[in-house]
């Protein structure tokens, strides 16, 4: 077990493409860190550099204090779980799991107990003598995990290990992975593009975009205090709603009307005035009829409801807002990544609100909606930085 330190690590490919730019990341011994970001953001390249499958162009990588830039994968003592599991098709489950031990010249009599132990943990005992081709997707995934844990390596590296499973199994395996990591407390770096997976699994989450690390924080911190528009929009489902706003002293003009800022909000904004981008999470909205105490913290307004989706435990309500379209590179990129850019009508500003299922809001009707304005975040329209983020 060991810590992993990326110190100004960059990766430039032969064609000049820079996949990872000057990345600094400290992963503590036993920590579970998630690398998350849209496809092509460099998260897999970063992981493969840690594994030694990809050269480091610049910077230093230390595992357990040793600089390992020039080490071959086999000399780094890390284990990796691949997206498609990379099980050796010509070996049985037992041979697959024993393979790293045999290569590590572990004495023969120690290999079998270790494999059996790992198989027991992962509930694979009855499959040990089968070939990967005869296993289900979930079983294969567990074999890949088994091959990693059997050697007790310095670190686990996982490259989207659950993305090939169907939705239900994925949730199940997610808890399994979390439990396993807690039990073994082995340093783990886990790559995913699924922000839900990132939020539920990691001690800390590192959000990447176009090769640049955006923010590294605990899931709660990322959610409540995103550093910029990109992180705010990427984390959370449904995504945060963004709308144009104008700061004028102690008030802010939102599309729903003018709102008075709290002292705390105003203090965080410094002496900033003028056009900004406001962000409100879907759960910051509520059906005005259902808001009891705390009503004074927010603003009530009327909106014509476009669509109501009932999830049973909550309602998603969509309504348009009167405002020009926001121009922001970050938002365009987020839209492109989620595929929203391809949906017709995506240029209309639409807000999604998560309401209590008791709400009687109907599609096509005018509804009274309440917004908790104390949770609204403000961003610089040019840089995308959250205003007040640096004062943390």
């Amino acid at each position: 077990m060991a810590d992993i330190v990326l110190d100004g690590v960059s990766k430039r490919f032969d064609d000049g493409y820079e996949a990872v730019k000057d990345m600094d990341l400290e992963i503590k011994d036993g920590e579970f860190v998630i690398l998350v970001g849209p496809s092509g953001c460099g998260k897999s390249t970063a992981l493969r550099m840690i594994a030694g499958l990809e050269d480091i162009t610049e910077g230093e990588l230390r595992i357990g204090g040793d600089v390992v830039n020039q080490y071959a994968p086999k000399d780094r003592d890390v284990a990796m779980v691949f997206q498609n599991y990379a099980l050796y098709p010509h070996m049985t489950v037992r041979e697959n799991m024993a393979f790293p031990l045999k290569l590590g010249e572990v004495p023969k009599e120690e290999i079998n107990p270790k494999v059996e132990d790992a198989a027991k943990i992962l509930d694979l005992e009855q499959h040990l003598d089968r070939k990967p081709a005869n296993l289900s997707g979930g079983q294969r995934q567990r074999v890949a995990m088994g091959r990693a844990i059997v050697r007790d390596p310095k670190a686990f590296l996982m490259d989207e290990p659950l993305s090939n499973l169907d939705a239900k199994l994925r949730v199940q395996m997610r808890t399994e992975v979390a439990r396993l990591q807690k039990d073994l407390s082995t340093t783990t770096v886990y790559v995913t593009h699924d922000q839900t997976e990132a939020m539920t699994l990691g001690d800390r989450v590192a959000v990447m975009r176009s090769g640049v690390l955006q923010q590294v924080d605990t899931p709660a911190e990322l959610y409540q205090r995103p550093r910029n528009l990109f992180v705010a929009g990427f984390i959370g489902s449904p995504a945060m709603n963004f709308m144009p706003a104008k700061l004028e002293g102690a008030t802010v003009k939102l599309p729903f009307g003018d709102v008075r800022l709290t002292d705390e909000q105003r203090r965080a904004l410094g002496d900033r005035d003028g056009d900004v981008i406001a962000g409100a999470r879907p759960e910051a909205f509520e059906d005005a009829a259902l808001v009891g105490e705390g009503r004074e913290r927010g603003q009530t307004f009327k909106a014509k409801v476009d669509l109501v989706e009932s999830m049973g435990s909550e309602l998603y309500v969509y309504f348009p807002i009167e405002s020009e379209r926001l121009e922001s590179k970050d938002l365009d990129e987020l839209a492109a990544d989620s595929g929203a850019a391809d949906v017709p009508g995506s240029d209309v500003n639409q807000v999604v609100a998560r309401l209590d299922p008791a709400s009687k809001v109907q599609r096509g009707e005018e509804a009274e909606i309440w917004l908790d304005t104390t949770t609204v975040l403000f961003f610089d329209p040019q840089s995308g930085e959250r205003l007040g983020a640096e004062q943390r």
Partner: protein
Amino acid sequence: MKRGTREYTLWSIGLFVILAASLIPVIWIASLSLKAPATIGEGGFFPTEWTFDNYESLFKGGLDSPLLRPLINSIVIALIATTIAIVLASFTAYAIARLEFPGKLLILGGALAIAMFPPISTVGPLFDMWRNLGLYDTYAGLIIPYLTFALPLAIYTLVAFFREIPFDLEEAAQVDGATPLQAFRKVIVPLAAPGMFTAAILVFIFCWNDFVFAISLTSSDASRTVPAALAFFTGESQFTAPTGNIAAAATLVTIPIIIFVLIFQRRIVAGLTAGAVKG
């Protein structure tokens, strides 16, 4: 289900015609080989008198017999050429399928061009060179030119097979603690073995089939292969045509091909079309 039965009949007829067209010439040569020498002139598809005389006379006289030496020559030469080609080609194919390096396309394109060379273009110089080097009418004198078509064929087939082995497996092996050589030996080779075997069958068939080099670069039974020997068969006496003997020898060398095809047809088809048709 009127349409169904009509379709069924149509495809059945199609299948039958294809089967008949492919097999009749083969059955014919086998049937010819079983005719008594005296009855060959009668014509007719099937023998009126069945006999194995034609086969017997092929092997009369042991090593001096018309067929035994050429048969041994053919087998040994094709086997050696195949082995050399597969070993050399598997290095190259592995590099092309797995590694990034400049010159990759040049090698592939060059191999294809060489595979397309008409053998007659090189046979003249080889004839002259082999006479000077003492390779004329030797095994080596045939094995070397066979590499011209064997190497490209093997490279193409093997590249296609190697590319089908997931790249991840090798990386997984490296992370699991294998050196590149161990990764190659313990992961790639076992997975590539069926492909290498298929390539070997194809290369063997091509070597077995060669005629131009075989008649140009040999002059005696010391190294003459079966196709060349067939063309130079003479009758028992100068008044009898060697038809029966040729038919018998032809049938004999066809039997291994039929066995190969029966056992490995799936693989041979995969090997033939590998690389050629994709995208």
